[in-house]
């Protein structure tokens, strides 16, 4: 009886694994096809579509636009979010936990609403269709991700380590740079990654803020996918899945503590001894 239940559970979970990974695997196989038509299984294999996506400006220009926007969003979002995490965790100001919950509201608001509201604002400011407008808009959803990740890791740092550094003569700036930042490195990496993805993955906020001279990769993909699904789109999906796989490997290795466990702790001890 118990055994039968376990087998049923294992079959269900295996089915779900197939449901989650199957579409991506099939798309990658389609992207390696020779024919200009979508075929599964493909009649012959080639990397012609990958070459096309990597060399045609139709694809590279939106990719570059997305890369620039996501990098800017990452820098701005992480800076503002990290500062806010300090205020939330370290200040004695009243209502700080209420304010913290408020700042997280963009995470549980449908992106379409944020997009529409910001499109109204950016249009009246004449910033719609510009990189500035896009980055400011996407940053709204990036900051909460940074706050979530950084305030958790900041809360786990024992302030007495910082007091020790300061009592040994370190300035507040030095303490921040040599003690606090290395200790919260895991949270910072995760925060920066989420801030980057908030822009890199976004097709909804960018939808109304794209202009004739500004198209991000997800918005371009959305247009292509609804007009003519082709092996070239599958190849673009292949590239994006590969990037996701790299990011994912980074997160798993950071999350499981493989690179940081050996590095961060001794360094903190060294700094403490100085």
């Amino acid at each position, binding site marked *: 009886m118990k055994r039968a239940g376990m087998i049923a559970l*294992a079959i*269900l979970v295996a089915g*779900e694994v197939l*449901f*989650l*990974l199957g*579409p*991506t695997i*099939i*798309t990658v196989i389609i992207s390696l096809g020779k024919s200009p038509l*979508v075929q*599964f299984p493909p009649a012959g294999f080639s990397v012609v579509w990958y070459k096309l996506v990597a060399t045609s400006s139709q694809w590279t220009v939106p990719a570059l636009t997305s890369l620039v926007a996501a990098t800017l969003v990452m820098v701005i979002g992480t800076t503002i*979010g990290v*500062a*806010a995490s*300090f*205020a*939330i965790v*370290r*200040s*004695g*100001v*009243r*209502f*700080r*936990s209420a304010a913290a*919950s408020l*700042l997280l*509201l*963009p995470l*549980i*608001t*449908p*992106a*379409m*609403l944020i997009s*529409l*509201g910001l499109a109204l*604002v950016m249009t009246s400011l004449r910033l719609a269709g510009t990189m500035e407008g896009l980055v400011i808009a996407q*940053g*709204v959803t990036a*900051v909460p991700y940074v*706050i979530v990740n950084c305030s958790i890791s900041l809360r786990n740092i024992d302030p007495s380590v910082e007091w020790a550094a300061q009592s040994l003569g370190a300035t507040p700036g030095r303490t921040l740079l040599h003690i606090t930042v290395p200790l919260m490195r895991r949270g910072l990496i995760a925060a920066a990654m989420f801030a980057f993805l908030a822009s890199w*993955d976004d*097709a909804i906020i960018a939808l*109304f803020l794209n202009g004739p001279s500004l198209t991000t990769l*997800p918005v371009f*993909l*959305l247009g292509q*996918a*609804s007009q003519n*699904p082709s092996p070239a789109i599958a190849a673009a*999906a292949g590239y*994006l*899945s590969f990037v*996701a796989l790299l*990011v*994912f490997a980074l*997160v*798993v290795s950071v999350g499981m503590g493989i690179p940081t466990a050996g590095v961060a702790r001794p360094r903190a001890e060294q700094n403490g001894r100085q």
Partner: protein
Amino acid sequence: MRGTLHTVMIWLRPDKAALAGVPALAYFLLGFVLPLGLMVSISFGAPHWTLANYQTLGNAGLFWPLLDNTLRTTAIVTVVTLVLGYPYAYAMSRARTRVAVLLGAVMLFPFLVSTVVRSFTWVFILEPGGVVPKVLELIGIAHPPVLLGTELGVVIGLTQVELPFVVFPIFAALTAVKSDYLAAAASLGASPPRAFALVTVPLSMAGVAVGALLAIVYTLGSYITPELLGGQGSTMIGQGIALEVQTSLSWGIASTMGTVLFVVTALVLIASVRLGGQRLLGGR
């Protein structure tokens, strides 16, 4: 004036660290509160303040099917993700560490591939002549149901998109159910299914509530998946907003639909806080 400010400052007890939160607060007010406020005020015809937009929308006849589709799709997707997500989270919580990490990674992977990619990969699979219809024919279903361009297609795509949001909160809640509790239940004579129903399930309800809340809120406002996988009969409110902005350039009607979506989302959030209370937002 200075006296009042001084009193407020003393009462709030600001310090240097509090100043670090000012940019984020300003960004929140200008980038979130102001835009949504503008949307709501435009829906009421600001600066003339009329209900004309709401009357137009209510009489158009197009809006009600949109709202109906949105609510029905959201209900179906939420139930399906919970039914599929609970056993998955349970398996993760009971498996050996390596298997659990692998299952978590599998769940996280599509989550990291962009939503646009995740959704259009289903186009290749569901379209007539795609993998799923072919397999269905092989099994012996002579006339497989039309999947692409229907509500069923949208539900399949959205289920994959929302599944991680449901699985991770339930998994977090289930890891808090210690095997000691189950041993205690067993020692008191409970059979394993009884212990599961009376101990494990009630203790994991907070995770189920958070997962359901996220699935509801994200599905209500979805745009990409229904746009790529749906058809004319399955249009959702997010698509309605985009259509008004992009093709009719009708900001008033778009804002009105946005305000309706905003109110529905807010009602869901308020109801969940009322029902789940502190456990949902402040609880650990």
